[in-house]
């Protein structure tokens, strides 16, 4: 059966991109039902920082004992079914989470015509390994900061202070170990290790987060709620401008480096330029098609992209947190990440890691007097990436016209405009719908966070938190794990890539990352994050 994109609705039931929209919007819609008093999302199992035994005098606040390492988020946030969700307990909530997401993702796998049995077995393995890693990564040694220890009246002790970042790093490491040392297992799991699907779904959930941020902040003060709504819209505008400028500098820069310094053929240079400078594999495929390259060009370049993307994911969050720009400019760091790290999965994962690192560092540096809202730095990294993804269709269309009509003229050929839609990333539709619906709730029935809208906002929060916090983090964890499983560093040693590896290395580290940082600084330097560290900083004490 052929897979062609011929009509505007082509692929709606058969592509991961559309299935990220369906999954994301399905759970987003279930979350909205809390506005009607029906809570169908509170079962999601979420981790707490834990220790085996509480030290004497310590209180179960930021850190809990092992038996409470997971809880159903609805047990804390639900307005109508709190007791039900509390009664699930840690194991019960994990099992319910497994059953529901198994049904949802296996349905997706079936419609995408994957090997359903293999997907199911692979998914089950990845799911439980992910939860195991999530559990280990939340041990106080990895995750707790000095401030967490103080808040829970713990005695001073050494911890890595990585926050939720520890779990992400461990998930990536576990995945990489499988991907590089247990290759037959990795090949088997690859049917279910789908970082692009998981991250696109997570990005739709992130849309809920962006819309929910002002709602959460409004509990601290109406003013902060408005400030966060403004900040997300500022990110939207600055992200668009920065991305356009970045595109137009990155692409010709890398193309020239590839052609003049490394003497690559035109089509290879064009595909490589898009991959390194724009959005990795998707750009490599889109550009390969645009310049009518034989598919082998895009396939070779894509194999390199996924490996370099993971290298970026490992290096950049730490560099941006501890070297430059640090906690002085978290939005600059996030935006630069979005422009520099290739593939949606690696970028969003790097943004999430940056979010954890930055908040943990700020908490530590300010001794708990400054607390940034969770997730906004991730949003800054994803916002530029989403613009990049949306522009690739337009860029590939323009490039196709320049190529077919000018550079390598093909008599009789026309470039159909429908190409723009076929290359449009559909998951962003889910992201924007989720964002704007919650923003609409905030400014509409929520009265912009004033006292009269508070009951609606509380009801919205009960449905939003399990999605934007629990499900989003779970899908980020699944992304880290899957990215590791499908990444084989040995690829870099394959002779066929030869000088392409060096073009990539030089262009990325000496051109793309510095220029991305400068452009991000020019457009995002004016952004500041509100401080949430005031009494009663959450609607429900969370």
């Amino acid at each position: 059966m052929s897979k062609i994109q011929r009509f505007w609705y082509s692929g709606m039931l058969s592509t991961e991109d559309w299935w990220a929209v369906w999954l994301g919007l399905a759970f987003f819609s279930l979350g909205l039902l809390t506005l009607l008093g029906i809570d169908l999302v509170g079962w999601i199992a979420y981790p707490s920082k834990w220790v085996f035994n509480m030290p004497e005098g310590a209180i179960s606040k930021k850190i809990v004992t092992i038996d409470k390492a997971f809880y159903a988020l609805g047990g804390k946030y639900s307005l109508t079914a709190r007791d039900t969700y509390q009664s699930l307990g840690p194991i019960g909530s994990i099992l319910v989470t497994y059953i529901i997401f198994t049904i949802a993702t296996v349905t997706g796998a079936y419609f995408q015509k994957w090997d359903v049995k293999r997907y199911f077995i692979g998914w089950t393995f990845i799911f439980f390994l992910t939860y195991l890693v999530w559990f280990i990564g939340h041990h106080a040694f990895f995750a707790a900061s000095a401030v967490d220890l103080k808040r829970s009246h713990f005695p001073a002790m050494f911890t890595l202070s990585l926050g939720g970042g520890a779990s992400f790093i461990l998930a990536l490491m576990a995945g990489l170990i499988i991907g590089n040392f247990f290759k037959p297992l990795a090949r088997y799991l690859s049917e279910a290790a789908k970082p692009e699907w998981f991250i696109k779904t997570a990005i739709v959930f992130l849309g809920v987060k962006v819309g929910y941020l002002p709602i959460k902040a409004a509990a601290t003060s109406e003013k902060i709620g408005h400030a966060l709504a403004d900040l997300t819209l500022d990110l939207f505008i600055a992200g668009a401008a920065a991305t356009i400028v970045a595109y137009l500098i990155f692409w010709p820069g890398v193309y020239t480096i590839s052609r003049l310094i490394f003497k690559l053929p035109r089509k290879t240079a064009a595909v490589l330029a898009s991959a390194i400078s724009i959005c990795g594999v998707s750009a490599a495929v889109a550009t390969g098609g645009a310049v009518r390259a034989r598919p082998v060009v895009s396939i070779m370049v894509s194999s390199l992209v996924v490996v370099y993307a993971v290298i970026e994911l490992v290096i950049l969050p730490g560099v941006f947190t501890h070297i430059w720009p640090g906690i002085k400019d978290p939005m600059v760091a996030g935006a630069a990440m979005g422009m520099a790290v290739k593939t949606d999965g690696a970028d969003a994962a790097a943004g999430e890691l940056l979010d954890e690192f930055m908040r943990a560092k700020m908490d530590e540096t300010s001794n708990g007097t400054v607390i940034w809202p969770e997730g906004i730095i991730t949003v800054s990294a994803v916002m530029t990436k989403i613009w990049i993804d949306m522009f690739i269709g337009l860029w590939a269309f323009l490039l196709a016209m320049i190529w077919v009509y000018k550079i390598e003229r093909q008599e009789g050929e026309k470039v159909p405009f429908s190409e723009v839609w076929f290359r449009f990333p559909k998951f962003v539709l889910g992201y924007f719908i989720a964002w704007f619906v919650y923003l609409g709730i905030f400014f509409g029935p929520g009265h912009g966070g004033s006292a009269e809208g508070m009951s609606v906002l509380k009801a919205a929060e009960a449905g939003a938190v399990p999605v934007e916090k629990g499900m989003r983090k779970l899908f980020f964890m699944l992304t880290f794990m899957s990215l590791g499983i499908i990444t084989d560093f040995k690829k870099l040693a394959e002779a066929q890539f030869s000088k392409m590896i060096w073009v990539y290395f030089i262009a990325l580290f000496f051109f793309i990352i510095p220029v991305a940082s400068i452009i991000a600084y020019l457009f995002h330097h004016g952004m500041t994050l509100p401080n949430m560290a005031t009494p009663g900083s959450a609607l429900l004490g969370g």
Partner: protein
Amino acid sequence: MTQENNTDFGSLNTEDLDTSSVLEGAEEWSPIETKLVVGSFIAAGIALIIGLIIVPTSILH
């Protein structure tokens, strides 16, 4: 291996692909490429100026 149980490759198996010409045989740099590259940089400059003026969080504000 069949298509269904092989997630590594589509109908194009990399072993079937002729990879030699991907890196070799660079064409001469042509004037149209200069136009493309310079045009893109100029467009970037214009977009940068307009962007810095329009975007409220830019360093110009």
